[in-house]
């Protein structure tokens, strides 16, 4: 009797072993492979973009703390704050006893996150640079959180949406676009930036796409020289058209002549998350309108 | 020719009880020496007479009018002061420093004329620093700087010359030269009033003396009446031996 039971138990264990031995792994944006023993149950997001992606991956219920300015989705507003970008509250993070940290390459300080890693908290870095990086990030986070099912649908929907936009606008007539990030100093983006890629997807030509820096600081003269046909910005606040009005006085600009000065809603275009799809859709419609006015 | 008068003057030395009121006149042709130990208030008295400090009591009168109510510019045409401590201000050449003596004589819009420059150069020559005219004052020795300061006063050419220990830092030759210069000026109508720490210089060159005692007492008058050994000993709290030299008394600290 005993021998039979023990044989059966051993057999069951042997059958289960492969499953137990298969740890959960995903590659992060720094090229490291992060492996967890089991799906993460307490996740702290260190930036608003990471928060949105975690919720898109279906792991929202597992998030126990978020970085400042995490305002989407609305549920995230109720979660405890752990500090802002490079000024994280290390104590608050440790006190939440997380088993996974999700960090943003351009937002969080490497040193601070490494400090947390030294304390035994695994960190997963995100840095979406292409549209494909967004669904891939969702899928990686889903693997780490054990929520592959709901995530798949989100990721696929995003891919399909982008593909649709690409098809729709692949033959659109090119328009010269200037995207204004800030007014003092005057900043724009180059073609490696995600917004720059959105402009190209919609059939626009980013007049400063060729510059080496991701967010170059340029002069008004350079903008006049480039003679854009459309000027797009998200302004300082939603609904603030001050920067666009400042361009009105330069009536040699084709954009001013055609009245192609547009304010884009910032939230959906500025963050590389699922909402980017809405943002790109909106931008493409804006450029369509602009094309008609030229 | 101006006359400076102290009337019931009580000098304001912060933290010190008022001394005896002073009442003397500094007239053209007079060479006054102010004697007293360190801390007796000689410098403060000089600054008060120049109008740089308000007195605690009494008044200073210039040509019959109180100093305090007169325009500073007018006053500085008639009273000049050489300070004891050199305030090291901004860098400047020797000639530039002497030239500022002409400031009271020029209006705001006037530039210094060649006459002004000539006056300054003459003054520098008289003080034997003419050859240093383009040197920066900060590069000079203490004695040279002292002579530049006196040259500045000479360039200013006021009627009343106030000097605070003008022979400090000077070697023997220049001490005599300066005292000679001051006496000559007094002879041609200036009034000289100076603080001296060297009793014998005062005895030799001054025709009037003011003695400031450490306890606040003071006495003044023609030199012959002031050069009484007992009062000098009381002044310096030091026994003195007197010697006759060229008909003038010479005082040496006694031994023991």
């Amino acid at each position, binding site marked *: 009797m005993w021998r039979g039971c023990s044989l059966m138990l051993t057999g069951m264990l042997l059958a289960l072993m492969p499953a137990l031995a298969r740890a959960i792994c995903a590659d992060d944006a720094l090229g490291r492979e992060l492996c967890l023993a089991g799906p993460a149950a307490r996740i702290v997001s260190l930036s608003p973009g990471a928060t949105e992606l975690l919720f898109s991956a279906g792991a929202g219920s597992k998030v126990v703390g978020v970085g400042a300015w995490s305002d989407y989705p609305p549920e995230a507003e109720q979660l405890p704050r752990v500090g802002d970008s490079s000024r994280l509250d290390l104590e608050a993070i440790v006190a939440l006893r997380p088993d996974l940290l999700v960090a943003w390459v351009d937002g969080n300080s490497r040193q601070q996150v490494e400090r947390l890693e030294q304390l035994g908290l695994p960190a997963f870095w995100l840095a979406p640079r292409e549209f494909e990086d967004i669904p891939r990030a969702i899928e990686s986070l889903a693997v780490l959180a054990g929520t592959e099912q709901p995530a798949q649908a989100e990721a696929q929907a995003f891919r399909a949406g982008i593909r649709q936009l690409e098809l729709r606008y692949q033959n659109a007539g090119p328009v010269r676009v200037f995207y204004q990030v800030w007014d003092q100093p005057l900043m724009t983006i180059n073609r490696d930036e995600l917004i720059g890629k959105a402009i190209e997807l919609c059939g626009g030509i980013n007049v400063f796409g060729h510059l080496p820096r991701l967010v170059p600081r*340029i002069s008004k003269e350079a903008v006049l020289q480039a003679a854009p046909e459309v000027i797009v910005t998200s302004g300082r606040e939603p609904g603030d058209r001050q920067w666009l009005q400042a361009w009105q006085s330069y009536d*040699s600009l084709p954009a001013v002549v055609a009245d192609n000065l547009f304010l884009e809603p910032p939230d959906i275009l500025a963050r590389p998350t699922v909402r980017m799809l809405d943002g790109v859709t909106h931008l493409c419609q804006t450029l369509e309108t602009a094309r008609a006015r030229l | 020719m101006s006359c400076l008068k102290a009337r019931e003057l009580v000098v304001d030395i912060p933290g010190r009880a008022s001394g005896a009121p002073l009442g003397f006149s500094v007239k053209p042709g007079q060479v006054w020496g102010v004697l007293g130990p360190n801390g007796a208030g000689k410098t403060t008295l000089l600054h008060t007479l120049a109008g740089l400090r308000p007195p605690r009591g009494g008044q200073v009168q210039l040509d019959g009018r109180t100093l305090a109510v007169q325009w500073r510019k007018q006053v500085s045409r008639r009273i000049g002061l050489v300070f004891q401590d050199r305030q090291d201000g901004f860098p400047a050449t020797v000639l530039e420093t002497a030239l500022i003596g002409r400031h*009271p004589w020029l209006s705001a819009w006037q530039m210094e004329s060649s006459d002004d420059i000539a006056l300054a150069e003459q003054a520098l020559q008289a003080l034997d620093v003419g050859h240093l005219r383009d040197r920066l004052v900060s590069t000079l020795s203490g004695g040279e700087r002292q002579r530049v300061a006196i040259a500045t006063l000479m360039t200013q050419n006021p009627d009343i010359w106030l000097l605070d220990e003008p022979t400090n830092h000077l070697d023997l030759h220049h001490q005599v030269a300066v005292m000679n210069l001051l006496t000559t000026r007094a002879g041609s109508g200036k009034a000289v009033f100076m603080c001296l720490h060297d009793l014998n210089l005062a005895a030799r060159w001054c025709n009037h003396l003011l003695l400031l005692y450490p306890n606040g007492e003071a006495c003044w008058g023609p030199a012959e009446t002031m050069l009484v050994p007992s009062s000098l000993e009381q002044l310096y709290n030091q026994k003195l031996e007197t010697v006759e030299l060229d008909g003038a008394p010479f005082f040496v600290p006694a031994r023991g």
Partner: protein
Amino acid sequence: MPGSSIVRPLAGLVLLSILVMMFAVTVGSAQSGMFKVLWVFSGGGTGLERTLILDLRLPRVLSAFAVGGLLSVAGALMQVLLRNPLADPYVLGLSGGAAVGALLAMLAGMGGFVVSGSAFAGALLATLLVFGLAHGSGSWTPSRLLLTGVVVAAGWGALITLILAMTPAARLPGMLYWLMGDLSHSGQPWPGLLVLLLACLLVLPLGRSLNVLARGSLQAAALGVAVRPLEWLVYLLASLLTATAVTMAGAVGFVGLVVPHMLRLVLGNDQRLILPACALAGGILLVLADTLGRTVIAPEQLPVGVITALLGVPTFLYLLYRSR
């Protein structure tokens, strides 16, 4: 100093100023050439060229000249006031106050005009604060003024650090650019030029009194200078000049320290020559620095404060070495 030795260097500097400004107007993201510039001035040129030259470059070059002149004269005045050749316009905390004003406005999400107004108000507040504190009991001596100013400047510095720490990351580039000194958002140059001109005119009759004051305040009093009123006037004038400059272009460093010093090494110590020369030489220097900042990595821009620091320090060291 005879009049001719003042007129000649000044005339030379005026000529140089005009040449440098003309040069600067021809240079930019788009090269324009002297003939095109002259043609635009005489009424010709395409819309784009006219906009570039008359609406963008000319005001900017004039603003650069004004700011450079204002800071240099303010620096020279501060050096006389404090009897210290190492003083600069910001040593009494004026730029700190302006910075706090500007940064608070930026933190509140305000733009252009409000930021400039706040900067000016902050500068005036800093001026009055140091004036009032130094006034206290006892004499208004240079060392007391300097100590008060240094402490107040440190206080402003702490506030600036606090504001920077609390700002959301997106607003930081704008603040940092302002703190470095940046001419790209300078508006009309005419108020600045007017203040500069008035200051120079005011300072000419005071020049010799300043020479005397520079030798020491007691000495000056003995020579008939009204020391206290003159010092107040110099202080307020220097503050007004600095406040105007900082409002136009943020805290541009080194110009106020290096230019008066350089000129004194070359031209001597007569304030009647130095002060107007500072106005011209400072203007020339800043126009050149700004032109460099506009073009060296075009179309990207470097803030002019970076250029003045990089140019100013080695120039100064070289001149000090030469003068030994």
